[in-house]
């Protein structure tokens, strides 16, 4: 009997087998992407049927089909679908999927908790991918990696000092006295981007006596801590129409950073090493001295001229960046681990930037309805920034260099530096002073999604988010006793300034997202949420003076003084957004956010910020068929956002006083306003997205009109009241602009591809209402060029005094139509900006380059003014500036100094080759054991074309956060980099 059943089974098995083999075939294959990495969990579907499978962890698949020939469709998120015609089942199919270059299919953030396809978005949201951000060339820090990569932004580096420092404005000037910066969010954490002064004013005397901290000591901003290599993508919401849901912090825009997350599949390990060469972008050189001029300036006969500028700045420094990452996961968990170490010495001796960053991102699906994603990032950095920018004691390096004559002997004799005739010895300052920022920072977040309902029609999800950002910033400024200006016992005798800031921010939020999808294509997405943010910053700066030896421990100081600044703030609120999507054809959203903050006059008052938008994908409406236009999407969006009053504006504070052993209090100079409200920005944005030739060419055009009301003005009040200013909501400002972006995949062949994008943007501002008299702000004085806030004029106009002697009343009326004693000399806003990026690949070579052109936009160049007053300007003896052709350039500028600032208000436009990179990827077989090896050479700011008469047109003496971010006073020179890369994937 058993024998019979075995035969029976065998027979049936053979029958089934034969019938299967006659009636079905199994097709096997492997799916990889262009770099050679396998694509796990890609969909493999027999076209026209529901027969499908997916690739396994190694990208391999096996699908059984009924008959051959047939067509299978392979698809995976982020890649273009491929259809393969199968003619034989015995052939192993190797499929290479190409990355989806269709810009419109990209996924972007559309609410606080949801994402949507770009093709359905009614706003322009600028995206910068990891490749565009940090993979063309090596970036010093996140802040400098964004220049030229998206429309609507004006990004300026403050100086060339190592450790960064930028000011970023999105869509124009959005505040006069408030904080102009955008909000930065990293993985849901509201990260701090402060610039904290180190308190070296006691030595530099930049702001006159009495102030420990100023904004002139070239502090960096904390967003520079974020490692650009960790970033997966950056989205920038440029105005209130997109950022309304971020409420009272979003008037300057929002920059949303998402870091890399592990993908399922076998573990990926990679290592990259970059070696860079840093050199100055431009050096100015010496004046063309002749013996007569030397003697007139008090120099010796037969003088030997030393080029101290070259001695300080003309160096090539080697920098290195090493990065190691490993990531991987399966269908339940994923991980990403990255560590970077960067060491970038600065041009000037004893300056530089060193940073180490660790990141661990872990995701885990706990059950099929509950998951959690945790990110953690620890950063340790040290920046030695040098002692530059403004000062009134000729002690900062740049300032003293202006007043140093080249025949002076500044080199040390027997280890002792001679005193500099300029007030300090620049070589001594570079060798013996310290200006250091040490940062230890931890940024972490945890996000959990609870899928409450999950059916075809209804989906309900609860998302909880926790973000935490804490850093300790230690600033150390040491000016030892041995400095030539501290040797005399009647001086300060050395100064050691130690500042410690502990900043702890945390934010908690909870969102509910409900999706309701109908069969007819109509879908509703409702999201509602609530949040709490807490900020706590405590800065203590101790200034010690009077040292008797070479040690500068604060305990050894004869005199020490302390200042402390505590900033506490708490914000809370809610938001609701409804998105109505009809089959991806018409998408409308409506939302509102309510905020309250302890920074407002009334901490419990809620401020509401609404938003609304509409986008119509005309090409999907079926109204017409077009061979050329594959996408036509007109869109319109409106939103309101706010900006808090500067911290402490609602109080009139007293200041601590100390005399002869007793302490007291005296009134402060800012009159508090208990009724101060946040500024409100209203933005209307409309535009058209066009896709041509199956979206191979995409043209995005956007127009926007931004009105800022309740503009906070720090109005001058009559000084006889005992106070000098008061914060009021007393004006309105408008910005109008155009942004155009053109993306084209020009050539897409097997071994040659070329894609390019061209961006053009322009913004103009106007003060539409001013309830207080017009006033000057920013800059140093109206005779040196200052901004002038005046109703009916641009917010960024630069005015100054003029010499009216010898001018007829008609001539005066032409220069000064309002008769207010000021003539308009320029405008800090650029005429337009344009960037052009190209990506070309040919076989194993990849070439990418990015040009950035900023046309117009004036700066105030006080470096040449100082050099002129000293008589040491590099172009002092050249001619060309004097319209009468009589005086040399230096003489002409000096003759107008403090009378007419026209010569110092210069065009700060430029054309730069921001980034260029050429890479070669070796074939798989060349290096056995490595999945991929890539080498390359790249450069940053290699070509800089500008008329500006100083080191670099991108410079700001007053740092970021201010209206006047274009004033220059002897900064740290800018540098350019050439980098050599080696990237290895194991």
């Amino acid at each position, binding site marked *: 009997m058993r024998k019979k059943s075995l035969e029976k089974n065998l027979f049936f098995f053979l029958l089934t087998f034969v019938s299967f083999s006659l009636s079905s075939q199994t097709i096997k294959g492997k799916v990889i992407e262009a770099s050679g990495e396998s694509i796990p969990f890609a969909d493999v579907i027999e076209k026209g049927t529901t027969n499908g499978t997916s690739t396994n962890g190694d990208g391999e698949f096996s699908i059984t089909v009924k008959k051959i020939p047939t067509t299978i469709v392979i698809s995976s998120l982020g890649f273009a679908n491929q259809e393969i015609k199968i003619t034989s089942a015995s052939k192993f199919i190797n499929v290479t999927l190409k990355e989806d270059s269709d810009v419109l299919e990209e996924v972007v953030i559309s609410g606080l908790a949801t994402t949507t396809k770009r093709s359905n978005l009614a706003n322009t949201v600028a995206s910068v991918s990891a490749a565009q951000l940090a993979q063309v060339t090596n970036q010093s820090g996140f802040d400098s990696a964004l220049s030229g990569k998206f429309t609507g932004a004006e990004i300026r580096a403050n100086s060339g000092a190592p450790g960064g420092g930028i000011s970023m404005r999105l869509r124009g000037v959005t505040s006069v006295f408030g904080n102009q910066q955008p909000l930065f969010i990293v993985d849901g954490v509201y990260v701090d981007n402060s610039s904290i002064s180190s308190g070296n004013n006691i030595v530099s005397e930049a702001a006159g006596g009495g102030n420990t901290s100023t904004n002139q000591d070239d502090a960096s901003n904390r967003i520079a801590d974020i490692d650009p290599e960790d970033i997966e993508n950056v989205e920038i919401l440029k105005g209130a129409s997109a950022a309304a849901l971020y409420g009272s912090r979003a008037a300057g825009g929002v920059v949303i950073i998402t870091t890399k997350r592990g993908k399922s599949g076998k573990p990926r390990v990679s290592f990259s090493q970059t070696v860079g060469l840093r050199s100055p972008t431009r050096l100015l050189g010496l004046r063309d001295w002749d013996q007569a001029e030397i003697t007139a300036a008090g120099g010796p006969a037969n003088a030997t001229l030393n080029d101290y500028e070259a001695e300080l700045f003309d160096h090539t420094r080697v920098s290195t960046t090493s990065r190691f990452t490993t990531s991987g996961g399966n269908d339940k968990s994923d991980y990403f681990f990255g560590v970077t170490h960067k060491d970038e010495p600065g041009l000037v001796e004893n300056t530089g930037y060193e940073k180490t960053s660790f990141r661990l991102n872990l995701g885990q699906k706990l059950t099929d309805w509950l998951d959690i994603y945790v990110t953690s990032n620890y950063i340790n950095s040290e920046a030695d920034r040098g002692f530059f920018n403004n000062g009134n004691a000729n002690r900062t390096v740049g300032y003293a260099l202006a*007043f140093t004559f080249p025949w002076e002997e500044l080199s040390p004799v027997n280890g002792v530096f001679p005193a500099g005739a300029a007030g300090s010895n620049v070589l001594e300052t570079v060798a013996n002073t310290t200006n250091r920022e040490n940062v230890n920072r931890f940024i972490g977040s945890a996000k959990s999604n609870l899928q409450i309902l999950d059916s075809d029609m209804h989906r309900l999800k609860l998302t909880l988010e926790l973000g935490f950002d804490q850093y300790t910033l230690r600033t150390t400024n040491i000016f030892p006793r041995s400095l030539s200006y501290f040797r005399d016992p009647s001086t300060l005798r050395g100064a050691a300034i130690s500042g410690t800031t502990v900043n702890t921010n945390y934010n908690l939020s909870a969102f509910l997202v409900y999706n309701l999808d109908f069969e007819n294509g109509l879908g509703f997405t409702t999201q509602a949420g609530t949040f709490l943010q807490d900020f706590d910053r405590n800065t203590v700066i101790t200034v010690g003076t009077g040292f008797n030896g070479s040690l500068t421990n604060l305990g050894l100081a004869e005199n020490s003084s302390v200042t402390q600044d505590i900033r506490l703030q708490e914000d809370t609120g809610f938001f609701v957004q409804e998105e109505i999507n009809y089959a991806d054809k018409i998408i409308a959203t409506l939302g509102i956010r309510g905020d309250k903050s302890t920074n407002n006059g009334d901490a419990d008052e809620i401020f509401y910020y609404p938003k609304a938008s509409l986008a119509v994908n005309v090409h999907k409406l079926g109204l017409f068929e077009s061979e050329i236009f594959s996408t036509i999407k007109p869109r319109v969006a409106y939103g309101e956002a706010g900006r808090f009053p500067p911290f402490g504006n609602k109080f009139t504070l007293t200041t601590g006083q100390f005399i002869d052993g007793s302490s*007291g209090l005296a009134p402060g100079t800012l009159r508090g306003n208990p009724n101060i409200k946040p500024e409100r920005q209203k933005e209307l944005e409309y535009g058209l997205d066009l896709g041509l030739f199956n979206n191979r060419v995409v043209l995005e055009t956007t127009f926007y009109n931004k009105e800022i009301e309740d503009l906070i003005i720090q109005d001058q009040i009559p000084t006889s009241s005992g106070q000098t200013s008061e914060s009021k909501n007393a004006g309105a400002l408008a910005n109008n602009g155009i942004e155009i972006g053109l993306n084209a995949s020009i050539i897409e062949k097997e071994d040659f591809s070329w894609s390019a994008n061209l961006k053009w943007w322009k913004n103009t501002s106007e003060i539409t209402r001013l309830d207080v008299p017009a006033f000057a702000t920013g800059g140093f004085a109206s005779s040196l060029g200052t901004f002038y806030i005046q109703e009916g004029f641009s917010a960024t106009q630069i005015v100054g005094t003029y010499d009216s002697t010898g001018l007829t009343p008609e001539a005066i009326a032409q220069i000064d139509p309002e008769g207010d004693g000021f003539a308009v000399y320029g405008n800090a806003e650029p005429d337009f900006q344009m960037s052009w990026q190209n990506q070309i690949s040919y076989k194993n070579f990849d070439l990418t380059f990015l040009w950035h052109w900023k046309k117009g936009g004036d700066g105030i160049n006080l470096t040449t003014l100082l050099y002129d007053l000293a008589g040491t300007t590099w172009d002092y003896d050249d001619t060309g500036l004097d319209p009468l052709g009589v005086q040399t350039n230096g003489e002409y500028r000096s003759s107008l100094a403090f009378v007419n600032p026209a010569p110092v208000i210069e065009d700060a436009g430029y054309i730069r080759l921001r980034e260029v990179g050429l890479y070669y990827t070796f074939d798989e077989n060349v290096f056995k054991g490595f999945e991929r090896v890539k080498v390359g050479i790249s450069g940053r700011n290699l070509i800089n074309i500008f008329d500006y008469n100083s080191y670099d047109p991108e410079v700001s003496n007053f740092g970021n956060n201010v209206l006047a971010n274009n004033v220059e006073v002897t900064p740290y020179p800018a540098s350019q980099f050439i980098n050599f890369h080696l990237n290895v994937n194991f």
Partner: protein
Amino acid sequence: MLTSKKNTMLKNKISILILVFTAVFFTSCELEDLPNENAPTLESFADGASQADVQSLAVGLEAVMRNDLEFHYQTISYIGREYYDLTGTDPRYTGELLKGPLDNNGFLTTRAYSAWYRVVKAANVLVTAVENSEAGFSDATKRSYYGYANTIKAYALLMVANRQFSNGIRVDVADPDNLGPFLGYPEALTAIRNLLNDANSDLTNGGGTFDFPISSGYDGFATPATFATFNRALAARVALYQGNKSDALSLLGNSFFDISGALNVGVAHVFGATGNDVLNAQFYVLGQSGQEYMIHNSWIADAEAGDTRVANKSFMLPTPRMFDDLTATHQMALYTSNTDPVYLIRNEELILIYAEANIGTNNAEAVNAINVIRNAAGLANYSGATTDAALELEVLNQRRYSLIGEGHRWIDLRRTGRLNDVNFLPLDRMGDNALDAFPTPFSENVN
């Protein structure tokens, strides 16, 4: 089947719990006003101030007078050609200040102006705090505070009136929303005299001691009665400016004037390097590069041989300093350390006031006083003419040497009508001008 139902129920329970928890947590978040942790607010002193509050305001009033003090003395000294800032760090000191016109919104005008009015505000705040305090002050104590505050307030108003001159000043500034009108120079001086008189009567009835710690700059003047002598000395100076010589003489009689007393007796700002104390910013390190604050060469050249004031208050540099077409040989050395006191008023000036006030009524006594000054400076007795005009010139000359860098020269030349006389106010370069007043600051909204 059962297990998945259990799972769903569990899931629902957990979700609802979390939902309720977060909803309750966040919506119940009422934001309380966070106080400013950096300093007390001014509003907290206006009503119900304690004794400690009032004392700290009184100490603060004395201390805040030193704030930006150098901006006042330096601008007045440069404009009066006593000494120049030839360091080169800010060319406006040799440009705008010596040539004009002065920027009514520039720091040369506004910095010292706002510093003095801050003192006035501090005095007003102190007076209000004492009036409305809950410290149980006796009437005498209150009056001692009023006397102290109003004397300092009068001093600050006098300083700013001298700067603004014919452009006038506001005197009634207690209510920032209702500022008083601008008074011309003579009217301002009258108002200051009246304020000093009111303060004096308060001091007379102010008991035996002050209730707060007053600094060592007031040693010898640290009780209401002795402080009143400082008040009368200020009034004497004002009377002299008003041209009222007889008042000046009688006020001197009630002040600390002592013709045979030490010249440096007086009331002073004191400085210190410890803790959060302030340093004397008018101290210049001798011979150090970057500290070239240079005395006008004519002061050295016009001195009589052997005048010890020249040797004590100047320092010759190894090589002359030149900047912006101005040259000078001697560095200003009035203060010898960064904690040297700066006098508000001292006996040497009172002797000179006495001398000037006697001219016309008792020229012999004027000569006596002049000789006290001359002898102290190592010079022989005055041997020139004793006509009114000649004695006026001699007093002016002695003031030039005794009071250099103490903010008097420009005012003296202006009130004796010699500001436009290049023999007195030298104009060293083409384009240099004699300016007679600082403009009303832009923020005053008067023009």
